[in-house]
């Protein structure tokens, strides 16, 4: 197994990560529906990163997720606060790489990854509401705002990751 990024990553993993980040970006542009306040449910744009991490393990997965986060920052920047940028982009998407954490139980890994992403966005929301909306229940506001679009997105991704993994079975075996 390729450890937590200590060893050099095989070129095949780097190329695959690049290609799957491109695919994730393309899917993020296909909106299933958009909410007025900026959140949207996309066509399973997290699935490529989740599958990559399942194939190559959590270390490369987190790296690919962070790279995807930075690409997203460039494609659809939404910048409100320095800490929010880090939490909403490289960190939130990097945590998607945790889906490779449990090699024997990919479903558990995907749940962990999604919880990680939600937590990161939630925390960034807490910082935002605390900084801009005074001290009025930032934790609650953030949970409502992020939950409104992330929960449907997470549900859709969970269904699709299962369906796609089944369709790609011979391809998506664990590499590392």
């Amino acid at each position, binding site marked *: 197994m390729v450890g937590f990024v200590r060893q050099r990553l095989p070129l095949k993993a780097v190329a695959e990560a690049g*290609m799957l980040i*491109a695919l994730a970006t393309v899917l993020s542009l296909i909106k299933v529906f958009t909410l007025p306040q900026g959140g949207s449910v996309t066509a399973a744009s997290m699935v490529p990163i989740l599958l990559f991490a399942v194939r190559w393990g959590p270390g490369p997965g987190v790296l690919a997720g962070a790279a995807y986060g930075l690409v997203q920052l460039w494609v659809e920047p939404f910048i409100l606060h320095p800490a929010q940028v880090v939490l909403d982009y490289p960190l939130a998407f990097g945590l998607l790489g945790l889906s490779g954490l449990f090699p024997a139980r990919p479903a558990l890994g995907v749940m962990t990854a999604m919880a990680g992403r939600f937590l990161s966005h939630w925390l960034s929301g807490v910082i935002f509401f605390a900084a*801009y909306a005074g001290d009025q229940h930032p934790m609650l506001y953030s949970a409502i705002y992020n939950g409104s679009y992330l929960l*449907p997105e997470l549900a859709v991704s969970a269904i699709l990751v299962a369906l796609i993994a089944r369709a790609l079975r011979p391809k998506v075996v664990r590499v590392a």
Partner: protein
Amino acid sequence: MLRDITIGQYLARDTAVHRLDPRTKIMSTMLFMLLLFLVRQLAGYVFLGVFTAAIVVLAGIPPRMLLRSIRSLAFILALTFLLQLFMTRGEPLFRLGPLVATREGLNMGTFMICRLTLLVVMTSLLTLTTSPIALTDGLEHLLRPFRRLGVPAHELAMMMTIALRFIPTLLEEADKIMKAQMARGADFRSGNLLRRARSLIPLLVPLFVSAFRRADELALAMEARCYRGGEGRTRMKQLAFAARDGIALTTVAVMFLGVLFLRGRP
């Protein structure tokens, strides 16, 4: 459909701002972001606003492009202003049902709008004047010192570079597959969320298969050209700091110190 989407907003020009080293621009933008959170007086925002406007003019960016980025934040701007206006305690200005607008709230709301607007304009300026490849390159250089801590800066930048190169290719492919499936009667636009998600499968599976195939081919092509990772790699275009980078960084640093100095005063 998908093909008409433009991603990113880089505006190729030949101005002094465009020619700055990407590292300079990334670092200055980060410092400027911190600055916006340190300023406490309205005069400070006026000064930073004038500074930002000067860069916009210098970079030859049409203001309507910046208005577009601000418009995407309209909801957040309005929400922030209203929350500050009605939630801040102080001298009442007017009443709206149970809500009381205060003078302090009005001040805070104006502050927040200035801060957010300048934040959006400055970060948009970075992506408007720097090509994505230059940004990635700059990022790799800036992360290099952290390699000792195990941050694989080169791999990260290579992943991003490959992704940026292949986004248009895969976008076109997605468009083609969507149309082909629609011609066979696929329906991507109706039904509830679950049904819509499931209807995406005939689009997603071919896209994944093709992405894996392309990745294999790319890795092979890179190996055939003796790519061996970041160590000892040479570049056709080397990043080099010029005098203008020194001027830009000094300006931002002086502003930063100035604000820190003024912050201590009433």
